[in-house]
């Protein structure tokens, strides 16, 4: 065990022993060996990193990490019985690198990152590895922990949590422009005007700001096929139907309904009791039984959409379901092959 953690624990033996005793009182099955392993394996490197940068914060970091480790072990979020290995992975790979930010507010930063790891790892379709990679790359560019947490929120949207899209774009405006450009994926020396990038992202959910257009004019294409049969790990027990709900879509398989949010970075389904919109939603899309789709940039034939069972559209996207598929097909006009 590195020195900083060991010496802090030894100097406050009564306090830390009492915390463990209280934890074991309410959770008799709490495994002391597993806890010691977590302290040695996960907590010690973080405390050591904080100690190296801010020795006066060693106790605060130890205290917060000790509490959180006990808490998360008791709930099986850490330790041998954990069903969320990404949390331990995040603690091991991210937190020692975030020492500067942890030193500023140990409990808040470690707690927030832990919760983010949990949320991203439990959202189907999200890309936690990508989120961790980008957080590591950007942490040193963040002047303070508040900026780091905002960057984390924006990156969570870019890693597949499409329902955070609008709020994430708003957050971009609150960051230093250089940090915002880096977060959106532009290189450090980029001089892209942030205003126009954000305006375009707000107007076109299928726009990827860092991809060069491969088409001179946008063309209609299938930008996503979302959802699958429950027997194969998906949501739907039967081929679903789709309806509009404001800017999003409601998908139902007869047993349950989900709100679908989707854009170029990912898609998420959220169980809902909401009813489809009764009014007609303004949309430039129409679809014919033959599979021909008319959109803002002309027409396109989609043979796989013939005899579609339901279709719904908003200003930028057409959602279509077909008889023999458990997926929702999303069609939009894009200026690149990937959509």
């Amino acid at each position, binding site marked *: 065990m590195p020195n900083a953690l060991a010496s802090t624990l030894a100097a406050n033996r009564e306090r830390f022993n*009492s915390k463990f005793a*209280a*934890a074991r*009182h309410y959770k008799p099955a709490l495994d002391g060996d597993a806890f010691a392993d977590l302290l040695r394996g996960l907590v010690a490197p973080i405390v050591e990193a904080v100690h190296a940068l801010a020795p006066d914060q060693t106790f605060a970091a130890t205290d917060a990490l000790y*509490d959180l480790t006990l808490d998360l072990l008791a709930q099986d979020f850490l330790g041998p019985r954990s069903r969320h290995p990404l949390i331990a992975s995040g603690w091991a790979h991210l937190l020692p690198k975030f020492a500067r930010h942890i030193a500023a507010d140990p409990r808040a930063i470690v707690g*927030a990152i832990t919760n983010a790891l949990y949320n991203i790892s439990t959202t189907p379709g999200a890309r936690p590895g990508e989120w961790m990679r980008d957080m590591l790359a950007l942490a040193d560019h963040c002047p303070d922990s508040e900026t780091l947490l905002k960057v984390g*929120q924006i990156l969570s949207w870019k890693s597949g949590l499409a329902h955070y899209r609008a709020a994430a774009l708003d957050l971009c405006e609150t960051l230093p422009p250089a940090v915002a450009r880096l977060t959106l994926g532009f290189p450090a020396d980029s001089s892209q005007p942030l205003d126009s990038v954000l305006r375009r992202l707000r107007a076109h959910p299928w726009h990827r700001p860092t991809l060069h257009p491969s088409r001179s004019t946008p063309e209609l294409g299938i930008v996503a096929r979302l959802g699958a049969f429950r027997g194969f790990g998906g949501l739907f027990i039967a081929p679903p139907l789709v309806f509009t709900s404001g800017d999003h879509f409601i998908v139902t398989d007869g047993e349950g309904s989900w709100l679908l949010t989707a854009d170029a970075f990912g898609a998420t389904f959220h169980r809902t009791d909401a009813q489809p919109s009764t009014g007609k939603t303004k949309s430039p899309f129409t679809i014919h039984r033959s599979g021909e789709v008319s959109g803002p940039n002309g027409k396109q034939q989609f043979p796989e959409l013939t005899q579609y069972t339901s279709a719904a559209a908003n200003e930028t996207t057409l959602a279509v379901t077909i008889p023999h598929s458990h997926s929702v097909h999303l069609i939009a006009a894009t200026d690149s092959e990937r959509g």
Partner: protein
Amino acid sequence: MPSLKSTFQHVSVAPTNPRLKPQAKTFDVADLYRGPVADSARGIDSGIPLDEKLRQAYFWIVNHAVISPHYDIEYNDGPHHSYTFGDSKAKLTLPSAQSYSSFILMPLLNFAVRRRCLLVGGPGRGKTSSAILMGVLAGYSLKEVRRGMQHGQPQMTISDLLGNPLPADLVNAKSMDEIKISWRKWLGMRVKIIDEYNRIPTRTQSALLTVMGDNYAELLDHIFECPESAWYLTANDDAGGGTYQVIEALRDRIDIVVKTLHFNTRFLNELLTRIEEGIEPAEVVPPAIIFAESEIDRMGDEIRDVAVPPGLRRRLEFFASQFEFLEPAADQLEYKTKDTAKLASADIHQLSAGETGKDKLKDLGAQTKNGLSVRALMTVLIFAKALTYFHGNREVELDDLRQIIPFVLHDKLAPDPDAPFFEAPGNAVFRVDRVGWIRKLFDLSCAEYDRLNLDNDDPLTKLEAEFAAGLEGVAESEARARLVKIERLLAEWSKGRKLYGHLFDDVLKLKYLHQRYTNYLRWLVTK
């Protein structure tokens, strides 16, 4: 997302006193940082209001820290059961609404409003532990709280309490200004604990009085301004059994008195577990119930915003008016008070015995040796608001007032144990049970208030409302008409009515109004 929480630092799930249905949730990117670790996100509102946090703190303390399985602050929401036991017909009530333990609740309310709380009771009953927990709730570590706690002892000097001048400066300084003072750290803390305050020598008590009363410390012409703080004083025996007599001014500064409740032996198992497992509750206070300084400030503001409806304020006025009046104390009406008798070192009981014609059982003022000070009334109001806030309401109700009054007036109302009331069958117990006695006083006062139908028929209220509308633009004829109304009312009241405390205050209020209108008329005429 599943609802996830720690088991061992378990904080009661909000809402702890459910009332309103929460609003439907929309997508919020702040949710990214909400999950297994509760309330970790800095700068992101957890959505829990401070009264909710205060209740969570209360429930954590009663469930995990101080074993106090009592519900003596009783609230009822509809019918409730009660049972009587023994020859004395001791009554046990099963409250039908959320009820609380005064030993935990009162110190917590004191924490919220940053006043001065005295915890009294025998040794080893949890007084100091309870006070230490309040320090931890304010964000201090257990070590800081323990180091900041002042232990009363017979040799305690002013320097022990406040600090020392630096020795080198004492030798070299040519003026007081050049002496630097090393102030004691506890003076800067937001929770101040004085353990066994009745063991502090009298001279040092005076220095303590300045800090407690005026929030600053003074040493060799140097001043230390203390932050606004919640004070906790403990005493094993509040009835003068300490090493030193507590100076009256210091006692008067104490806003609320809480008595330890006995240890219920059926909970011995909890004690055994603590011994065997080495648990120190103050070391494991969950971060979710620790209050930032700004939160305590905000909570204080929110508590001050709690409304006291006029009807209830009037009931409190009626109650408070019972005690100061002492008819034989003076010739002029204004001086017919217990304060006059006290200043003359007269025996209030003897003076009071000379009164004739009044029903001594009905006259609540006959039960006390003193009246209520302005400070006591202000304390009643702020603690009533705090209890209401804690309870989740924003307007004080009668029950809130009824529950808080005994604890605030505990050391403020001195009973006259020889008063006829205590001789009446069943009332002897109130000589000993101060909380029960004050609550009984309030109940009797409310019953009299209802009997007089003052909620619906209080002529003075109408006159007050007229006056409160302002004198500007009031015509001479109208002012004269109001004077006549006042004179008629006084004439009517003077016909054969016994003069009780409430009437004494009403009569003087009428005199005040009469004088204001008289002065106004004179100004109007000479204008």
